[in-house]
């Protein structure tokens, strides 16, 4: 069934590059502030909205040699933020080494966690390392409702997420005065636009506190990216064109200046470079030229072209994806 689904990503809307032109906008790289490291596609969950189609059956993992190349890169580039993602980064055996080495090389280390992987990793060394280096935890929690969360992320995930959040709170994450940051990310559980961020944050703060005594720092709401497993789902349900059209109609030219791809470099599990994690999923290499981290001749990417596709409308809809 999945093989029969069209790979056409047009969605019946103008090409993203055409829309940029119409608004007189040019998307070029600025200063690179964030180094995003994708440790692999292995994950303990099979989320319906995953743009990378990560899951337990995936074998792609960043090896130690590539991790050392990434560390060397950061030594020279000195990016302010190191953003570690996956899959579930906790499932890469070299995560701790990466955090330990990056700690002295960047101002902020972020770990994107699906919560259940962190909780069930049952690794006190990892947890104490996160505290020691004040790693910012960015956790996914799409909804305050069990069935919505489980329908996106798998049966039982909501309960596991609540347990993990309580555990992180106990360690000080999300609590005022600890310097340990716990941010949440809520993405829609279907083919519709995200809730306004300020409104959602207010509600999450109240409900999480009232029902479970959970606190956090900030909540971000982002549109789902029509790639990977989410793209397949959209097409299977006949929602793809309508969804793309909603994103296109929500195009906000003011978001382009602040798009994350202008200030981020994404390194895939195999060491190849991308302008963002979504382009990694779309197979669009950085600046449209397939380049391995070992082949880099410069670290100054300023003014370089950014590869785009129609999935980019997800980052420019409404208040955008920054």
């Amino acid at each position, binding site marked *: 069934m999945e093989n029969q689904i069209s790979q056409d990503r047009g969605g019946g809307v103008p090409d993203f590059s055409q829309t940029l032109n119409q608004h007189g906008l040019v998307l070029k790289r600025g200063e690179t502030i964030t180094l995003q490291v994708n440790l692999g596609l292995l994950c303990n969950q099979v989320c319906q909205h995953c743009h990378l189609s990560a899951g337990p059956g995936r074998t792609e993992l960043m090896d130690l040699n590539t991790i050392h190349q990434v560390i060397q890169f950061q030594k020279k580039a000195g990016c302010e933020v190191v953003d570690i993602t996956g899959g579930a980064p906790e499932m890469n055996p070299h995560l701790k080494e990466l955090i330990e080495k990056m700690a002295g090389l960047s101002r902020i280390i972020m770990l994107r966690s699906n919560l259940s992987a962190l909780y069930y990793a049952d690794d006190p060394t990892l947890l104490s390392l996160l505290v020691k280096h004040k790693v910012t935890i960015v956790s996914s929690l799409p909804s305050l409702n069990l069935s919505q969360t489980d329908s996106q992320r798998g049966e039982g995930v909501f309960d596991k997420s609540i347990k993990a959040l309580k555990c992180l709170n106990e360690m000080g994450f999300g609590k005022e005065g600890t310097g340990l940051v716990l941010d949440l990310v809520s993405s829609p559980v279907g083919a519709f636009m995200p*809730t306004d961020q300020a409104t959602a944050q207010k509600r999450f703060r109240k409900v999480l506190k009232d029902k479970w005594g959970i606190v956090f720092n900030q909540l971000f709401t982002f549109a789902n990216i029509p790639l990977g497993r989410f793209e397949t789902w959209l097409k299977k349900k006949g929602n793809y064109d309508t969804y793309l059209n909603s994103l296109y109609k929500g195009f906000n030219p003011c978001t382009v200046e602040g798009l994350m791809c202008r200030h981020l470099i994404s390194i895939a599990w195999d060491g190849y470079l991308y302008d963002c994690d979504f382009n990694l999923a779309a197979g669009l290499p950085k600046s449209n030229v397939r380049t391995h981290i070992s082949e880099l001749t410069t670290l100054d990417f300023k003014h370089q072209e950014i590869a785009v596709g129609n999935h980019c409308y997800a980052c420019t809809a409404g208040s955008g994806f920054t």
Partner: protein
Amino acid sequence: METYYNPDDLLKFEEIGKDAPDLAKKFFEYYGAVFDEGELTVREKSLIALAVAHTIQCPYCIDAYTKGCLEKGSNLAEMTEALHVATAIRGGASLVHGVQMRNIVEKLSM
């Protein structure tokens, strides 16, 4: 097959202003203001709209406010409860007229 209701027509709602622009302007401004955050949150207002949409059985409104409720952060359990509120009022409105029935029966019967 042609039908009276076409989902694409919902997107043409604003065209209603073509021949009476002043009235449409006033209506849409009012409509927008009603759904702004006030004493009620935008999420609560969407749930009310969804319940009313089912009461008046407007397919455009059901389409718009089902999606609207999801986008405002509501879940299916909350939306279903809102429908039951509308259903209770609709059903109750029928049932409470049973008092009239009883009054008439009382008057006519021995």
